[in-house]
């Protein structure tokens, strides 16, 4: 037991964060959190506070931090508009299982419900988009609430937690002692595995002719990357990844056959449709992965392993649901797994790869070679970074090209808004990732649309001297929407073209080195400069205006209806 001492609520909050090892906060001040900021002034050597330029920037930065480090991200905002600016990031973190603790100020307890200045009912508003939320109205509640917040955010299936702290609670004094939370009787984050289900799974896998291992972010969240590879190698099982699972398995691993879903690889989607057994681990069969559920994997039995009971059977029929932590389940499965040759199955994989190369990859980009293509940028960047960088994407074509053509050697290297598809996520999430793992190269890849959704965060990059690399793929279009308009709405480009500012000048105004490139011949050199730049660097790449991302499964269509052009 720690010694107790009397401190103000604001200080108790900081001491609690320090006790949780959370010494980095992304935040933005305001009237109802000034007491916390006042305490931060005294704690600047123990807590690093990063002032973003918008609360949305702070919450996405906390998400990027969490995704890159595996730790809980923390963000802080004032009540009312500060707090509501968090909402998009909280919803994003909920869908993408990102552990963050969002601390918001609130009007004094005595004024709750009075429509006081900057009062917004944050607890009600965030109930459906948080794993847990709580309003603190007295200083003595703070350590307990923070302990519970961290425990809930990071355990089980991680997610966002909101702690709303009334101003009086920040100012009052209370005895402080900190005890981490490790148990709540109503909450069982680590499931007890059903061993007979594991035995059935082993039998099914050992006797499958065309098994396919499908992995999601759960592998990263449960730190099961090595166990997964051992399991796949022992059983000789091909591995495909969801968008959120990317980088959990290195691209060059011989068993890795690519990405699944709407803009996934041909092999992964065709093999899904041909497989006789899908073993899905730490993923949730989202509609972007399955396409039309009724025609999904028509020949396969499905084993679904997930820590979240609500995911099992939620989106499609599952033959063997197993509620388990990914790592634990994989370790148990590995014990019984046999090596099976399956030569034809792997030949099918390489045939499909060849088909993708022939039908898609070889033809992508500008036939005349006049303009740079996004595909080319991502491919060459992967080479220039030797597959070692963390790639943070925005949303749209830039995201899907990054997913398809990036190459990774390390886990937790692909950070993207998967579930919510939040434009404007990329730049602040990259800031959070860079702050979390400063020793690694972090590159944000964004479209010209999404970049401008949180462009103000260039100010944060400047002030913190972050050394972040940024690529803006400028096609003067909201590219992904334009592609849908081209394919499904007779090329009626309704409000998708953008008149853009001089991005290089904007970066320079923020004292960030920047350059622009538009000729394919100069792309390599431009990327080398970005890679070798010492500090932060922004490269605006003028790309083909109307490039499309393929392969594609049109929304709601069967995975068998892949289109190549």
């Amino acid at each position: 037991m720690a010694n107790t001492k009397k401190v103000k609520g604001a200080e108790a909050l900081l001491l609690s964060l320090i006790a949780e090892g959370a010494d980095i906060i992304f935040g933005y001040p305001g009237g109802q959190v000034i007491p916390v900021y006042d305490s931060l002034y005294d704690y600047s050597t123990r807590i690093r506070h990063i002032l973003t330029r918008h609360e949305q920037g702070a919450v996405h930065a906390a998400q990027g931090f969490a995704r890159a480090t595996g730790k809980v991200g923390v963000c802080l905002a004032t009540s009312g508009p500060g707090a509501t600016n968090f909402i998009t990031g909280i919803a994003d973190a909920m869908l993408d299982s990102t552990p963050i603790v969002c601390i918001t100020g609130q009007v004094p307890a005595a004024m709750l419900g009075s429509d006081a200045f900057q009062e917004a009912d944050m607890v009600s508003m965030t109930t459906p988009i948080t794993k847990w939320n709580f309003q603190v109205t007295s200083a003595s509640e703070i350590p307990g609430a923070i302990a519970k917040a961290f425990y809930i955010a990071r355990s089980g299936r991680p997610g966002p937690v909101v702690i709303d702290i009334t101003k009086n609670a920040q100012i009052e004094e209370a005895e402080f002692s900190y005890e981490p939370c490790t148990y709540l009787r109503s909450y069982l984050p680590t499931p007890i595995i059903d061993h007979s289900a594991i035995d059935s799974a082993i039998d099914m896998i050992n006797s499958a002719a065309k098994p396919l291992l499908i992995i999601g972010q759960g592998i990263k969240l449960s730190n099961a990357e090595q166990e997964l590879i051992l399991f796949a190698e022992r059983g000789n099982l091909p591995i495909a990844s969801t968008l959120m699972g990317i980088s959990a398995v290195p691209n060059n691993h011989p068993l890795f056959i690519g990405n699944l879903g709407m803009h996934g690889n041909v092999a992964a989607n065709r093999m899904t449709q041909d497989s006789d057994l899908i073993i899905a681990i730490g993923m949730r069969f989202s509609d972007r992965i399955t396409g039309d559920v009724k025609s999904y994997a028509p020949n396969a039995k499905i084993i679904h392993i997930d820590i979240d009971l609500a995911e099992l059977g939620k989106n499609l029929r599952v033959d063997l649901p197993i509620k388990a932590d990914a790592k634990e389940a994989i370790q148990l499965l590995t014990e019984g797994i046999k090596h099976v040759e399956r030569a034809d199955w792997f030949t099918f994989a390489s045939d499909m790869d060849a088909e993708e190369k022939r039908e898609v990859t070889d033809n992508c980009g500008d036939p005349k070679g006049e303009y740079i293509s996004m595909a080319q940028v991502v491919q060459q960047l992967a080479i220039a970074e030797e597959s070692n960088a963390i790639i943070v994407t925005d949303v749209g074509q830039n995201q899907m090209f990054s997913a398809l053509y990036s190459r990774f050697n390390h886990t937790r290297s692909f950070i993207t808004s998967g579930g919510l598809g939040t434009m404007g996520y990329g730049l602040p999430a990259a800031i959070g990732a860079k702050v979390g793992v400063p020793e690694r190269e972090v590159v944000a890849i964004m479209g010209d649309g999404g970049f401008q959704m949180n462009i103000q965060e260039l100010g944060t990059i400047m002030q913190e001297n972050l050394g972040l690399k940024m690529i803006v793929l400028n096609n003067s279009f909201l590219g992904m929407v334009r592609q849908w308009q081209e394919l499904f709405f007779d090329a009626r480009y309704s409000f998708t073209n953008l008149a853009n500012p001089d991005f290089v000048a904007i970066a320079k105004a923020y004292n960030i080195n920047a350059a622009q490139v538009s000729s394919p011949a100069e792309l390599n050199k431009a990327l080398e400069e970005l890679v070798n730049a010492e500090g932060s660097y922004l490269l605006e790449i003028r790309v083909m205006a109307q490039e499309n991302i393929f392969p594609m499964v049109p929304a709601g269509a069967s995975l068998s209806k892949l289109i190549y052009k």
Partner: protein
Amino acid sequence: MNKEYILIAFTENQIGVLNRITTCYLRRKINIESLKVSESSIKGISMFVISSYTSLETITKITKHVSNFVEVLEVSYYDSNDLITQEIALYKVASDMFSGSERVDTILNQFGARMVELTPKYIVIEKTGTREEIEATRDKLDQSGNLIEFTRSGSVVLHRKSIDKILNNLIQNK
């Protein structure tokens, strides 16, 4: 096929839990027909009884969703056959109704009700029964033109098996 399902949840008696549970219905656009929250037979643990018309698939998903909430100890869904369900209703009727030749007691007996308040203008009677019985009485009074006001409790339920035992096990295991 839609039919009535009753979700019963035992939760920590904490603020915000009700809101969290009802969002599971709201986001799927399912109307809650009746809802009752009260302390269970164990101190500090609330019991939720929520009735709604929906499909088996949806109630299964809602139940799993609710089971994920941090404060939820135990949740299951039932159809009405699994439970002993009673409601209490209060009917305010015009006292004219009792001015005829029949004795008040006889009328109350017919309805299986008892009197809780008597004034010159109105009489309040109370009845306990199944939802159907409550409704039938309401219709009769309404047709007679004497019903002034009506209120009901929502379902008070008891599982045919003993829930106390489930609860005690649950607290020991969790």
